[in-house]
């Protein structure tokens, strides 16, 4: 029984007031290497079925990864039984009404396999050979995931979305591990991964690292590469629940009550939006919610999503708002969307380096954690390359730092915005693939202490 028929069967078996059935199919292949040799590799095939029953406003949610036809009735009954004895859901809203069966509904899930690395594997083998000859070590990871989701509700709604997410990361180190540099790329097919070009970039930075410069902790002008901007911006994006702000427990809360929408929080020219149809960054154009929180509501499943502006020319223009919280607060619903775009036609990174009198080029951030939710103060480390720029030229590699900095302060202290590009967030790229960010020049970025790590 395919996933679509499984969902239809679940809805037919349901005796609840309402029912939501969501099925996922994930097909993935991965390849990992270290020290110029392959390590763990594999392919996986997985499915998941979530049944949400709603009886007199009470919600029962049960999910399974193994659900042959003969188990569906017991799964549905379990979901219905899970409604018993619970209080009604606070975020109860009418389910969205169906609008017919979309054309793509009957399409089977997309698949991937180890063959997706057909071009990459020999290219990598050649790269290992070159690294061995030239005296450096390569580490990294390639992953291709093809995910298809089907969503069906007892109100007749049917939705399907399929998307591919490929990530390629490569890290070069000197054999003494004293110098390290990294490059990452988001790719749909791996056909566009040019390993030799990435190696050139890694070699250039290892070359820069031959000159080592020790600098103390302090506040520095920094050029943050797009991956760093993505990591910081995503931390902020994940803190934009309107309900938390309205309740007074968020960096986006306004003293005295309400939230900061309408307030200027960054310089002119800084704009963030999400759009499921952004070319090259396409994601599901509807909400898929597995549970309720201040960021999502199971009653919003299937909600169509379009472009949402979060910050427009420095002004906070949107916070993530469920339909329930929109009703409570009088705001518009603004669902979470799986991409984040910071558009800019500014200068390229090379040009920004050339116009720097003195500053630090920061290539990656790592181990970023929230320290204080009130200011969204984050701590974390620089990683795989911090370089001193003087008079428009890279002078050498600098020690790593621990930073303590809020992403809102990063935006507020931005001096220059570079050219936006697709980027893989070094840390949060595991959870959020589609980001388009520019490099930023930021004044007084707080490097709190020196880290001995490389």
């Amino acid at each position, binding site marked *: 029984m395919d996933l679509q028929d499984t969902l239809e069967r679940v809805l037919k078996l349901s005796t609840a007031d309402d029912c939501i059935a969501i099925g996922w199919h994930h097909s993935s292949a991965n*390849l990992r290497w270290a020290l110029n040799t392959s390590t763990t590799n*594999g392919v996986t*095939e*997985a499915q998941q079925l979530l049944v949400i029953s709603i009886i007199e406003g009470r919600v029962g949610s049960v999910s399974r990864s193994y659900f042959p036809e003969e188990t569906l009735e017991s799964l549905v009954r379990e979901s219905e039984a899970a409604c018993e004895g619970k209080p009604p859901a606070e*975020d109860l809203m009418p389910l969205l009404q169906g609008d017919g069966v979309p054309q793509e509904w009957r399409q089977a899930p997309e698949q991937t396999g180890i063959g997706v690395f057909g071009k990459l594997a020999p290219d990598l083998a050649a790269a290992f050979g070159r690294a061995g000859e030239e005296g450096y070590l390569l580490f*990294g990871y390639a992953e291709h995931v093809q995910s298809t989701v089907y969503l069906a509700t007892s109100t007749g709604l049917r939705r399907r979305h399929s998307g591919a997410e490929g990530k390629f990361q490569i890290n070069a180190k000197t054999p003494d591990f004293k110098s390290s540099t990294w490059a990452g790329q988001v790719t749909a097919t791996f056909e566009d991964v040019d390993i030799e070009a990435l190696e050139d970039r890694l070699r250039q930075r290892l070359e820069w690292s031959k000159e080592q410069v020790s600098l103390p902790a302090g506040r520095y002008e920094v050029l943050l590469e797009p991956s760093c901007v993505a990591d910081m911006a995503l931390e902020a994006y994940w803190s934009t629940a309107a309900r938390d702000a309205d309740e007074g427990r968020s960096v986006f809360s*306004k003293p005295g009550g309400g939230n900061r929408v309408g307030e200027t929080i960054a310089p002119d020219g800084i704009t963030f939006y999400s759009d499921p149809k952004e070319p090259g960054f396409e994601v599901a154009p509807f909400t898929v919610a597995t549970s309720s929180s201040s960021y999502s509501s199971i009653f919003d499943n299937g909600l169509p999503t379009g472009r949402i502006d979060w910050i427009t020319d420095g002004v906070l223009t949107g916070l993530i708002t469920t339909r329930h919280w929109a009703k409570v607060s009088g705001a518009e619903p603004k669902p979470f969307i799986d991409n984040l775009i910071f558009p800019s036609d500014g200068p390229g990174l090379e040009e920004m380096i050339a116009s720097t009198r003195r500053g630090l080029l920061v290539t990656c951030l790592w181990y970023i954690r929230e320290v204080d939710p009130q200011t969204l*103060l984050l*701590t974390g*480390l620089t990683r795989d390359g911090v370089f001193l720029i003087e008079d428009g030229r890279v002078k050498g590699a600098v020690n790593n730092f621990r930073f303590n900095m809020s992403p809102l302060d990063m935006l507020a202290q931005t001096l220059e915005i570079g050219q936006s590009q697709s980027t893989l967030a070094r840390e949060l790229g595991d959870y959020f693939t589609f980001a388009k960010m520019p490099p930023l020049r930021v004044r007084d970025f707080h490097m709190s202490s020196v880290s001995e790590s490389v």
Partner: protein
Amino acid sequence: MRPIDPSFLDLPFRRLGEAALSRARDLGATYADFRFERDRAQGISVRDTSLESMVTSETLAYSVRVIFRGAWGFASSVTLTPDAAVATTDAAAEVAATLASLNSEPVELAAEPAYQDTYVSGFEVDPFSVPDEEKVAFLLAVNEKVLASRKVDHVDFGASLVLENKYFASQEGTETTQQRVRVQGEFDATKIDHANGAFETMRSCALPRGRGWEHFTAGFDYLAAAEEIPGLLEEKMSAPSVEPGRYDLVIHPSNLWLTIHESIGHATELDRALGYEAAYAGTSFATLDKLNSLRYGAPFMHVTGDRTVEHGLATVAYDDEGVAGQSWDLIKDGILTGYQLNRQMALKEGFGRSNGCAFAESGSHVPLQRMPNVSLQPGAKDLDLDDLIGGVENGIYVIGDRSWSIDMQRYNFQFTGQQFWRIRNGRLDGQLKDVAYQATTTDFWNSMEAVGGPATYVLGGAFNCGKGQPGQIAPVSHGAPIALFRQVNVLNTAQEGAQ
């Protein structure tokens, strides 16, 4: 020992395992294992007096891992037929064959005896036998008690319950069936000054356990915490902001477990020390050349790794490579003396035998070298909290974990906490706020002047230690006594963020 859940035993894992391993033999794999796993999990979230979310899930999958043409191959499936198990073995072999050209040397494993055994972890009440209504009512009652104080504005309670069943069979003749239960639940109270927009939070220090529902009803006293925390949070809200500088720290196990996890647990993973995690999780300053010579900490510092402690989150009878659970020293008399191993590294680096640190998050994940329970042992002297505080003129007593971050070689770390109590002249003198401590690992552990006795020892831990690509989470426990550290660098987080 309780019996294995019969609904797991009804699943056809033996038949699938036989088909998979037989196929691997026919293909000429030099090693093969088959792992079948079912994980039941429940997540409950209560926001103030409303049930926000309660999802019960069951994840079932199996996988085949082979060494074929000298390379690892791995594949997983959810189709429970012998034909699918054979196809999964073929897929694993195809992965190995496709990528064998990337291997610089053939994979080999350290020897391990074959076992046929069954294991069930220690718990009293299967959390999935408790009616949902009762669990929700418990969480709501705690939240209502917190809010009834009228001293706080919000409270959020989150709980996670897991029942893990695993079957493992290898070409070497090992066949094990295991069952583990674990639970965690914590509430966070928030107090808001609506006039100026300031807010503070405080979390219960309920640490996760390899126990059943009895953890909630007869383990951690949630209702007592619900009574106590509103007043403590109110006091913290108006407490002075810490003056940054060097302080003596007395650290409670509810905070110290996380410092142990980050600065010792991850640092003594041999795969990190050898560079296999270099591109992602990172490496370690505690490299193999420093074994038996690195002065990690104070001369009385004793840290063990184990997969055996009762109610430990990483406790198993056999790991995911069929290696029996063990206990060993990682740091003895302050010196680095051991690592965490899997079978491949144990052989390659001359350790002889693995100490059983292979673990996979689920049946569809490949086993990695993962952390066992890593614990700081208590001192021989029966020192208590008063003894340690009594020896401090100017210090801070830290309770509960919160923010944590450490660099990719495990040198530089920064931690915050839930409660910070000023110590003046050997006595507690009210709370402080905005405290973080920042140090380098070996400096910190060498500044440890005393540890409490066995009565102060508490098992902390986490459900969600992350590692590897694709990312995997693993549960792990860390025991610690209360401990005293001299002259640690303390930051003021409000000043750190000021522009």
